[in-house]
């Protein structure tokens, strides 16, 4: 393997290869950092450019855009409370409060560094154990996917800060939204109100832009007319060294980072689930296992470490089934598959034997791009923060125009821009009523997976529900899901009784 890696490195490390990695990683970071322009869109726009290149150079370009794009999402999540990509939704929860405290540089530094570690971890896993992991992923059928999605949905209860009922309502609203459009399996039209546009369903990107970006602009507009509030937040860069956090702080996060990397990798491997799910799950697990869960959401680095390690670890994870089995896990990897196919290459086990230079060259390109991402984002930290010096009445409308470009460019239809407006209003209602957004996003991300796999599994079992319980992996996940629900209920009942007793005293 080392020999193959060395051959791959020799093929990538030429002036064109290095230049492509430098430029395309930067382009990916810019795309990722702008809410509305995702890593997927960046790959889609760069895909035609790769056609005229050799397969290795084309893939070098695309994986660089991918790695930069997933990581770049943290910048706007931390500085503006607007996730740059769906993968960095949970980064807002603690990243933005840190910025509000004047520790934006530290939050960015932590995010960038642990993004690097997350990606590195997953690339090493991809190189070392890809075939074994891919075989394991193949054992997952419809029953298992359904159970994993149900298990992940039970995390909604943990994501509900404050009122559990409000959290559950928010989560169900997310699932409700996934049922709009053509149903899986039989393509029955649902909740389309006679509109053909609604038939295609709601895409996550316009929903997220509306919920986070437009609603935030509306809330900002309420107070922006006051002169003392024209800047978003003051972030001092004076006296900040390196990444803005100490070695002790970094080392203190080792277990959180490792756990989140494993979560990100595992979720990334499973087709259909990716960074958009893993960042929320890693955040929830970090919160649940922390000795100070009440501090989550107030601006602590633990939250940023968990989400950024996990979503970047999903990058390598998603490439495992793609490169070893030819199965794309999400839209971004489907685009990468397209990048290989336009050169007449079909990913799978045979490709490792037939094109070792290409495959190992891609691995080397990923490692280099990850390093370049770290360096570029490190030197960009102060530039990103200086963006906050722009008055918000200028910055936010320009970001919104970019959001609309992203929403429109997604499917080239104006309908998606209307979705942004509608969800801007929903997001504003959520903010005003203090409803948690995270459960809704979780429900939205997983709702379709639950329904599709449930219906497919039931078709396989001829209507019997028993295999969900009797198949070992599926049964285990459902048991853990049931346990976690019971645990949360017991915990809440106890907390309620304690509060009642305290009130009585």
């Amino acid at each position, binding site marked *: 393997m080392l020999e193959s890696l060395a051959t791959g490195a020799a093929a990538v490390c030429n002036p064109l290869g290095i230049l492509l990695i430098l430029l395309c990683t930067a382009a990916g970071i810019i795309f990722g950092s702008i809410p509305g322009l995702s890593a997927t869109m960046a790959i889609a726009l760069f895909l035609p450019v790769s056609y005229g290149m050799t397969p290795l150079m084309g893939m070098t370009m695309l994986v660089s855009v991918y790695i930069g794009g997933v990581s770049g999402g943290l910048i706007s999540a931390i500085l503006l409370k607007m996730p740059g990509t769906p993968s960095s939704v949970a980064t807002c929860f603690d990243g933005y409060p840190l910025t509000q405290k004047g520790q934006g540089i530290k939050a960015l530094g932590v995010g960038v560094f642990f993004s690097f570690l997350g990606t590195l971890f997953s690339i090493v896993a991809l190189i070392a154990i890809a075939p074994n992991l891919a075989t394991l992923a193949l054992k997952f059928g419809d029953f298992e996917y359904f159970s994993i999605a149900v298990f992940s949905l039970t995390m909604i209860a943990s994501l509900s800060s404050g009122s559990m*009922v409000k959290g559950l*309502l928010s989560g*169900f609203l997310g*699932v409700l939204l996934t049922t709009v459009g053509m149903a899986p399996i*039989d393509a029955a039209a*649902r909740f389309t109100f006679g509109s053909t546009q609604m038939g295609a369903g709601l895409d996550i990107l316009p929903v997220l832009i509306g919920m986070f970006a437009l609603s935030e602009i509306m809330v900002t507009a309420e*107070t922006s007319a006051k*002169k003392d509030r024209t800047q978003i937040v003051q972030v001092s860069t004076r006296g900040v060294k390196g990444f803005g956090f100490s070695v002790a702080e970094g080392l203190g996060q080792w277990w959180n980072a490792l756990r989140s990397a494993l979560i990100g990798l595992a979720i990334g491997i499973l087709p259909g689930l990716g960074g958009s799910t893993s960042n929320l799950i890693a955040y929830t697990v970090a919160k649940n296992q922390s000795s100070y869960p009440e501090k989550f959401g107030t601006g602590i680095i633990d939250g940023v470490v968990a989400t950024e390690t996990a979503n970047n670890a999903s990058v390598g994870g998603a490439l495992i089934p793609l490169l070893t089995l030819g199965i794309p896990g999400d839209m971004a990897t489907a685009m990468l598959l397209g990048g290989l196919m336009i050169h007449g290459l079909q990913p799978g086990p045979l490709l490792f034997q037939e094109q070792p230079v290409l495959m190992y060259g891609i691995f080397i390109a990923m490692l280099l791009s990850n390093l370049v991402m770290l360096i570029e984002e490190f030197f960009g930290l102060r530039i990103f923060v200086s963006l906050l010096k722009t008055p918000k009445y*200028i910055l936010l*409308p320009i970001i919104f125009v970019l959001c609309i470009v992203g929403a429109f460019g997604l499917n080239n239809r104006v309908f998606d821009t209307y979705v942004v407006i509608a969800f801007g209003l929903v997001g504003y209602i959520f903010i005003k009523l203090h409803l948690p957004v995270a459960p809704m996003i979780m429900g939205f991300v997983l709702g379709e997976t639950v329904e599709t796999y449930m219906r497919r599994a039931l078709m396989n079992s001829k209507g019997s529900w028993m295999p969900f319980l009797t198949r070992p992996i599926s049964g285990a996940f459902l048991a853990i899901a049931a346990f976690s629900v019971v645990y949360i209920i017991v915990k809440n009942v106890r907390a309620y009784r304690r509060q009642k007793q305290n009130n009585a005293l």
Partner: protein
Amino acid sequence: MKLKKYEDWLTGAFFLAVTLVYASQIPLIKRTKISPVNSAFLPTIVAICMGALALVQLYMAFRNWKQAKAAGGTQEKAEDSPDYRRAVYTLATALIYVMLFKPLGFVLSSILYLTVQMSVMAPKEERRPLRFLLISVIAVAVIYLIFHNGLSLLLPGGVLTGIL
């Protein structure tokens, strides 16, 4: 602030309204026999759970209201009063922007939107429409060049089709 006082009630009412509209559409879903459970199965579960939770939310709002009344009402802290009008203007400006996006084209609608939105959000003493117009033209030109010319993203030309 008044909204805070009615937050729990409004939450329950909002979700109950969503559930009622949603549930009213469930009978219209075409039932097929391809799969053991049809396409109305999950929506029905969602509607039942959401409806029940919305009612629980309304009950909790009622209970809290009764408790607050028994305690003689709590004093609300005086908050910095938000200017809701500007939020509504922002939403309206954004809506008009997307409505004009195709007929006027990306360039003109975006310049118009940016100039108006900046004027809506800026403090009175910093409101300089000409400056905003200039910033908008530059910003839109840069975005258009990058996406349309650089990355071949098809943005609506509108009235400027054939000119740009």
